[in-house]
């Protein structure tokens, strides 16, 4: 009996060896004493659990959790649409899977010295900011003094981006460096600057601190994956093999508020698969930047302020589809269609939106190890499609072969 109680306790605490756990579980089927011991051990452990210092959860956590109860949007019509049917027939996985790092340049080779200095400064400010918004920070516990002091002591991120984007960064002058600069300034940075501005003001919530934490973490990784000399020590870690699960993206996007400059949107999820998406931090950073580009293109065009972000695996074999979907007017959809097809008007108002899509295209060339965009487009590896009153943007990423379950970063 004592042995059984010990086993039940160890099982409850998760320290019973795997083989013994399986035997114990089998015992639970028809052994009343084993069941009784387990119930007793669980109640003992639960009581200890109640000794934790009471802390309250924010309202936004409840909102996020209750979203589970809302019916998931039906993505089947999109998955059965012509472009995705075409993708099913054309998609094939390359032998050597791309694991990121291809869009990286050396910051000191950027010709514009002011750009170099400003990017370095932004990176260092974000390194200082990160621990101030982490889950164990004073700000996460409701004390904003250190965070406010830091934010007031540096130029605002939004002003910095505006200033750096005043003049186009010339591809002729900067070569591939232009893409790295734009990826660093236009993917997660606009949302990051929105939340840091809001936290620096008077009207903010605990959810904003959490959002800024995720944005900071992503932005730093995107910058390291864009410039190999900005933080070489941390880049070494980012380049190591380590699976990143779709759960990391779902946690971040689920119920989130997203901002692209002055446009804000509420994100909805519901179809994220469970399992790894990328194999290295540098790959995750590139994937993440692409997801931000999708969100930035779609959120300002949503008719109702909401948009969906989804990761669907195996709807196309061996492929992970990143999909963004929003209700849009015909006019807004046509605008997206022009951006995706590279049709530029004389107006400069959509200039940054064209760059967002070009960032995805460049990344797709690397991911599919291809040299021509037209063939990738023809294969529907990325694109824009309208169904009823909704616009869908997507890109296809090669799945990891023989991947096992979810993994942590």
């Amino acid at each position, binding site marked *: 009996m*004592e042995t059984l*109680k*010990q086993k039940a*306790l*160890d099982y*409850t*605490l*998760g*320290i019973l060896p795997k083989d013994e756990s399986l035997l114990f579980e089998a015992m*639970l089927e028809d052994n009343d004493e084993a*069941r009784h011991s*387990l*119930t*007793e*051990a*669980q*109640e*003992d*452990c*639960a*009581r*200890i*659990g*109640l*000794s*934790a*210092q*009471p*802390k*309250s*959860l924010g309202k936004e*956590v*409840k909102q*996020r*959790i*209750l979203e*589970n*109860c809302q019916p998931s949007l039906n993505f089947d019509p999109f998955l059965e649409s012509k472009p995705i049917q075409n993708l099913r027939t054309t998609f094939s996985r390359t032998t050597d899977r791309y694991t990121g790092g291809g869009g990286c340049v050396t910051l000191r080779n950027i010709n514009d010295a002011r750009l170099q200095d400003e990017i370095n400064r932004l990176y260092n400010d974000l*390194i200082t900011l*990160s*621990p101030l918004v*982490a*889950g*164990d920070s004073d700000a*996460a*516990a409701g004390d904003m003094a250190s965070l406010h002091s830091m934010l007031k002591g540096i130029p605002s991120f939004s002003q910095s981006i505006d200033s750096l984007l005043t003049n186009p960064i010339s591809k002729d002058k900067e070569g591939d460096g232009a893409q790295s600069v734009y990826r660093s300034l236009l993917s997660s940075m606009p949302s990051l600057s929105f939340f840091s501005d809001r936290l620096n003001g008077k009207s903010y919530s605990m959810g904003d601190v*959490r959002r800024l*934490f*995720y944005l900071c*973490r992503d932005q*730093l990784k995107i910058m390291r994956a864009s410039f190999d000399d900005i933080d070489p*020590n*941390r880049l070494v*870690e980012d380049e190591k093999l380590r699976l990143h699960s779709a*759960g990391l993206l779902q*946690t971040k996007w*689920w119920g989130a508020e997203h901002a692209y400059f002055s446009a804000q949107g509420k994100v909805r999820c519901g179809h994220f698969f469970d399992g790894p998406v990328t194999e290295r931090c540098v790959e995750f950073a590139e994937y993440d930047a692409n997801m931000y580009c999708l969100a930035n293109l779609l959120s300002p065009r949503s008719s109702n302020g909401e948009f969906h972000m989804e990761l669907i695996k195996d709807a196309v074999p061996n492929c992970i589809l990143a999909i963004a979907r929003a209700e849009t007017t015909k006019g807004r959809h046509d605008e997206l269609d022009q951006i995706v097809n590279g049709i530029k008007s004389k107006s400069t108002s959509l200039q940054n939106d064209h760059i967002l899509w070009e960032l995805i295209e460049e990344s797709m060339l690397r991911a599919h190890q291809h040299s021509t965009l037209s063939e990738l487009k023809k294969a529907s590896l990325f694109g824009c499609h309208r169904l009823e009153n909704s616009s869908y943007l997507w890109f296809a990423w090669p799945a990891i072969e023989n991947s096992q379950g979810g993994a*942590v970063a």
Partner: protein
Amino acid sequence: MLKIENDIWEKIRDGDSLAFEQLYDGFAGAMFSLSLEILGDRWEAEEVIQDIFAVLWRKPEAYSPKKGKFSSWLLVLTRNRSIDRYRSRKRRLDRGETDEILQSRPDQANKDGAEKATASDEREHLNRAFSNLPPEQRKIIELSYFKGMNQQEIAEKLNLSLGTVKSRTRLGIEKLRNSLSTLRL
């Protein structure tokens, strides 16, 4: 705190979103407090709670009344998922990974989960029960419950035999059970 009965699970299993909300209102705070105590990180603790509620809604059969009381199962699941994250973070630190957040985070090994309890009547009750335990039993329960160390690791850390660790754990928990038997769950 709401007393969670098994019938709330039955309602959730049948797709009753009000029951799901009721469970959240009554019990998420206790689950979050436990997770935060173990992890010391608000965002990670929120993620643990978010994941558990998502599983509960989508796969309610993850629980079965055969597994004991619903409330106990929820707290044990919260504790085990939090410990998994804690261990994963510790492994990363042990490997010398240089994530900017991990780097700035002090090792929480010295943080005493049980001794920080002071607030409600229930917690005072718990605190008293803990402080009445012989220190050698209390230490082992803290290392096991809040730090997720297995008995071999505890034996090595405290320089004790495995048998001593096992018997002290069991004796400590039995004493706690006797002192806390009036505490509702």
